[in-house]
């Protein structure tokens, strides 16, 4: 496109009045998510008297805290225009490692460190292959998705590890003050860290630049490959952390643990307003999205809807969330 037309001098669409700025807030995706979340909560409280119980509410966060941790780092990966389909398999790998190391007599803190290290290494394998050979992340992580879970199958077969140190279960099942699950606190802390990282640091700026235009980012002196490598590494690290929490919560390790989570995580990120093509998205958006999914699952559980129906709803929400704005835009254009 060498023949770039000139700007119409009079038409400054972005010269917004105060009123337009307020309108812009309502058009923001986060605002729509808040509305959806509110609607779900209203529905839930009508559906079941147990919903609006603080203990129940905090309890319900346990069922999604591990996925929510993965959502944070996955959001960064999707913003740079990549994807990591191997996260659930990294969980299986780390879970297996934790299970085996526990039988070798490791203590709880050692198990946590070990899980995070295994996850980090797995993330480095992903990032290393992607960056070194310049191949699409989706293919590499489809490969490692099989490989990591495959290793877990080789070690465990149809067996399970289920003997852990006595205090191990506190991680995933314990509460602060008898009310707030530790897992949820871990999630909240990480959510703040990731939000600050993405929106307030030079790295965050580089991540958005890369996602919008990797070539221009590279020309601007951003070390595109280095950042990609580390984001996959961090994603592996988060999977390692999620794995040890998950293992602690369910008290056993099987090779099929967390099966299919990668897609739920990606769906949550996309519903949170992150463009699957990269370049845009916010942490508040994906955090809200986590709660939308979490509260929806919780509500459906209260009215005894089977879990698999949740997958239908997830699918519909994913497509609906992306299709609606596109269709509205198409219809509003003459």
């Amino acid at each position: 496109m060498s023949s770039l037309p000139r700007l119409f001098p009079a038409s400054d669409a972005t010269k917004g009045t105060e009123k337009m700025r307020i309108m812009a807030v309502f058009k923001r995706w986060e605002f729509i998510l808040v509305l959806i979340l509110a609607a779900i909560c209203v529905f839930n409280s009508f559906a079941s008297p147990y919903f609006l119980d603080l203990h129940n509410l905090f309890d319900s966060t346990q069922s999604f805290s591990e996925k929510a941790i993965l959502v944070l780092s996955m959001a960064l990966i999707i913003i740079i225009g990549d994807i990591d389909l191997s996260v659930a398999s990294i969980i299986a790998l780390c879970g297996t490692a934790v299970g085996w190391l526990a039988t070798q007599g490791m203590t709880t803190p050692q198990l946590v460190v070990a899980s995070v290290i295994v996850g980090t290494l797995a993330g480095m394998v992903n990032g290393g292959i992607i960056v070194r050979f310049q191949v699409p992340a989706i293919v590499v992580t489809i490969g490692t998705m099989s490989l990591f879970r495959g290793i877990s199958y080789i070690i465990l077969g149809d067996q399970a590890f289920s003997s852990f140190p006595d205090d191990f279960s506190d991680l995933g099942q314990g509460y602060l003050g008898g009310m707030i699950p530790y897992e949820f606190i871990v999630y909240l802390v990480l959510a703040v860290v990731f939000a600050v990282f993405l929106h307030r640091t030079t790295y965050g700026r580089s991540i958005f630049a890369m996602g919008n235009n990797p070539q221009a980012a590279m020309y601007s002196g951003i070390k595109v490959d280095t950042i990609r490598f580390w984001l996959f590494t961090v994603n592996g690290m988060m999977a390692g952390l999620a794995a040890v929490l998950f293992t602690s919560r369910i008290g056993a390790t099987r090779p099929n643990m967390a099966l299919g989570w990668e897609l739920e995580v990606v769906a949550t990120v996309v519903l949170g307003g992150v463009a699957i093509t990269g370049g845009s998205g916010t942490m508040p958006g994906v955090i809200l999205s986590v709660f939308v999914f979490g509260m929806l699952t919780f509500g459906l559980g209260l009215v005894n809807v089977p879990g698999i129906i949740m997958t239908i709803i997830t699918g519909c929400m994913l497509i609906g969330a992306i299709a609606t704005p596109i269709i509205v835009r198409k219809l509003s254009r003459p």
Partner: protein
Amino acid sequence: MRRLLQRRENQLAAIIILVVGLITLRAPVFLSMGSIDTIMTDGAILTMMALVQMLAILTRGIDLSVSANMALTGMVVALLSKDHPEMAVTATIVLALGLGLLLGAINGVMIAYVGIPPIVVTLGTMSIYRGLVFQVSGGAWVNAQQMGSAFIAFPTTRLLGLTAIVWIAAVMVAAIYLFLNHVRKGRELYALGGNPTAARYVGINNTHNQMLVYSLIGLVSGLCGYLWVARYAVAYTEIALGFELQTVAACVIGGVSMAGGRGTVLGCVLGSVFLVIIFNALPIINVSPFWQLAISGAVILAAVVLNSRSERSKGKLILKSAQLAAVRGTA
């Protein structure tokens, strides 16, 4: 000889022969007629599904919903067979094709007309279709005793010594080969994947082609759903779970470029054959089937790394000497 080995398909064929040779040394039974027959019958469905997956990948897309489509179609026809055991096989096949086509067309509409990226659409429909399998079956299994006998018998009916499922796959390989190499629409898929802007300049319509691709994938998935359920004589919610990744893996191993526009029918078939041989060889050489997943992962990674060498853009040829060298190399 070196020129011959430069072609990816030839490399892969050589590797397959080598692997088969090694396995046979260890367990001669691997090359028996019975074993080959099983491999072909097992490989038929993967080959067909990998071929249609290639159509999506050629146009820079992907279809993750194929296995859910297979499961849903398979479950629906199995339930019908349970209620009407006397139903003709042709009717079953027509139904399977029709339902598969419908499910594929839904993907097609969302991708081509609404304009949502294929990975998002098919990720969503994958969940939806899989959930619907549970809905229609109530989570129950349909087992061999409940299905009609003709329904189960058809895929393994023999004609000239080969099973029907192998014949169907053979016809499909030939049809897709013809389509991709000798039909205008087929070549347009390569053009679209190779350079979408240039495709627009020569008036190739992306919308129609995407609709066609995802509908075709649905059609074949529906058929394979029936064949799968009948071949293994059981239908349940988790049927073919994760199979979509095997189809992508077969394509990657066969040298189909995830960046679009590059890939051959032969490569794709060889990729499928390679995976099936590995999977079938494991029990024969006394390796636990639990190794299957890890091996396929390792193979995919190896293929990805090998592909990256041939795909790396080398930059333009500006120097006359470099141009001459390139022309000599290809002549």
